[in-house]
């Protein structure tokens, strides 16, 4: 396996940053965010897990999908092609998050053209986790701290530097510029968290849909969008046509797509005012069920990769792993339902 020193890695990253956009974890006022960097020196080396996932680089928080110029003639222009970019320091869970979004946006017909463009233009360079952190539970949902699924290249910290695993063709092309030494090396096993609950099959979730547990958890849900926005797999969005500018005779309208969340009350409200999920308990339950039942049944992938960001970010301590454990507990002891 190719081993690179920190210096060689930095050199490679600096060269990438010259040629295209390099996105990596940086620290902003104490928060770790994936942002464009000019060189490897700006990267927040030694980070554990970022506060926001790199999702925005494949599925931007805001983007114009097309522009309509309304005048004597009407012209519709698609949005500009996305810039080629490399996202460095992607954790294995976040890469699986991209695969989860692919299950809907790429693998269903019709594919989401805009997302497909971003995906094609982006190379994901992963960094293996030496351990599972405080709120991580990737192993519960089929992931691993050193998993390479969804990545183009995976780097693992070893003595003296990093071991480089090329995972895809895109990764191979990018790794060609990476100088290193071929060495035999045994990759360290990541330290796992013990005592995590078991994720039950979708049928069990279906059976527990009407449990009062969901109401009790939702009592404290504020109905904000934090969990959805920090999540690497959440992909619901709002689309609105907005007048961007106008002058006499011409109006420019942008069709904007922006992140949205099923946790807010207006999300599922339809024309006429009816809301199929009028209570917070229905909305919160929907979020969990989408991840662990609807999405896997409809699109073949779990909607959760166990990154734990929602657990840390939720201001009222709603814990998705607790929900998984509750379902497992109820399944094991159906008579003790509270």
């Amino acid at each position, binding site marked *: 396996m190719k081993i690179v020193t920190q210096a060689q890695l930095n050199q490679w990253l600096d060269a990438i940053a010259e040629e295209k956009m390099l996105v990596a974890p940086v620290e*902003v*006022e*104490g*928060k770790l*965010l994936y942002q464009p960097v000019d060189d490897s020196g700006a990267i927040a080396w030694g980070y554990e897990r970022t*506060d*926001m996932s790199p999702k925005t680089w494949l599925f931007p*928080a*805001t983007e114009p999908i097309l522009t309509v110029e309304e005048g004597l003639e009407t012209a519709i222009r698609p949005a500009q092609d996305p810039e080629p970019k490399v996202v460095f320091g992607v954790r294995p869970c976040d890469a699986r998050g991209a695969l989860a979004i692919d299950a809907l946006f790429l693998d269903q017909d019709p594919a989401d053209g805009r997302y497909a463009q971003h995906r094609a233009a982006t190379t994901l360079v992963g960094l293996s986790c030496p351990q599972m952190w405080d*709120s991580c539970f990737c192993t519960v949902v089929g992931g691993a701290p050193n998993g390479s699924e969804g990545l183009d290249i995976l780097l693992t910290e070893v003595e003296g530097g990093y071991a480089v695993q090329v995972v895809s063709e895109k990764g191979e092309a990018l790794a060609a510029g990476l100088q290193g030494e071929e060495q035999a090396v045994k990759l360290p096993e990541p330290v796992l968290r013990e005592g995590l609950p078991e994720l039950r099959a979708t049928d069990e979730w279906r059976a527990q849909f009407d449990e009062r547990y969901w109401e*009790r958890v939702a*009592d*404290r849900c*504020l*109905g*904000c*969008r*934090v969990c959805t*926005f*920090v999540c690497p797999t959440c992909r619901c969005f*709002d689309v*609105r046509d*907005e007048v961007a500018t106008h002058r006499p005779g011409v109006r420019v309208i942008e069709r*904007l797509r*922006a*992140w*949205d969340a099923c946790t*807010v009350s*207006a999300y599922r409200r339809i024309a006429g005012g009816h809301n199929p999920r009028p209570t*917070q308990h229905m909305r919160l339950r929907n979020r969990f069920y989408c991840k662990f039942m609807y999405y896997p049944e409809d699109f073949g992938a779990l909607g959760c990769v166990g990154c734990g960001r929602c*657990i840390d*970010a939720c*201001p*009222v*301590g*709603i*814990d998705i792993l*607790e929900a998984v454990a509750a379902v497992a507990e109820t399944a094991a002891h159906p008579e003790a339902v509270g």
Partner: protein
Amino acid sequence: MSGQKSERVESGTAAPARPTMEAQIREAARAYLEDVAVSCVIGYERGPRGNVRPAFIYEADDVDRLVWGADCNLNLVTYVHNWKQPLGRGQPVPTVAIVARPCDARAVNLLIHEQQIQRDKVKVIGLTCAGTEINGQPRLACQYCDERVPVVYDVLIEAEGEVTAAVEADAYEDIAEMESWTPAERLAYWASEFDRCIRCYACRQACPGCYCFECVAEQVDPHWTSIALELPEKHFFHVMRAFHLAGRCVGCDACEAVCPMDIPLSKLNRKLAKEVEAMFGYRTGDDPETAPPLTTFDPQEQLRL
């Protein structure tokens, strides 16, 4: 628990100590659930990972879930907005009991004045408070707070020792400092702070004063602001939210506590509180009768615009 300005004596030390605040809260909750027709007691509990979170207690047997400590920070009064409707057809509006710090309790007066709740439907379990902490650090709001006993309560939970109102800092020192900067410097400051904002609306949802069915930031018609998660929209949202709370904000700083990006939102609210105090001598939530300044006027006044 820092115990800087009050002493919290653990039960089991020298008698006859007053029971701990936590024990008193549990007793009050038990009494409400058993004796008075309270549907729910809203307080704090610790989750399995040790973090404090809101607790909703429905049975007297569960009151031991309730805790109190320096890390208890959300304004629980905000949940009263979920309890304003009858629980079923033909039923009365429920009564709930809420654990409230002095800052939180002011929100009760505000909401009574704004006819969102009736006084007899809310039982305030008021706490004498020496300040709470975020991540082990005393909250900014607490350093400026001169209030130790809530302005409104049905049951007063008293701390062991003397809870003095030793105010450590001038409430508006940081605001005054920012006022001395140039407009461009302030713009750059807020641009860098709002840049991190993800428009999650946690601040709005946590605030007891924000209870509009449809926020102007989400309205489609009229279309006030774009759905984009970009700086101008975030600037718009925070400025307008702060303004909609002018004279109504109780200074609980729940907005800042819940922000996932640690944006210093309370500066906006405290700036307005400073101006409201200077112009109108008004402080939100003193009592349920006095109207917030923007909902009333004085024909004689002349303000510098």
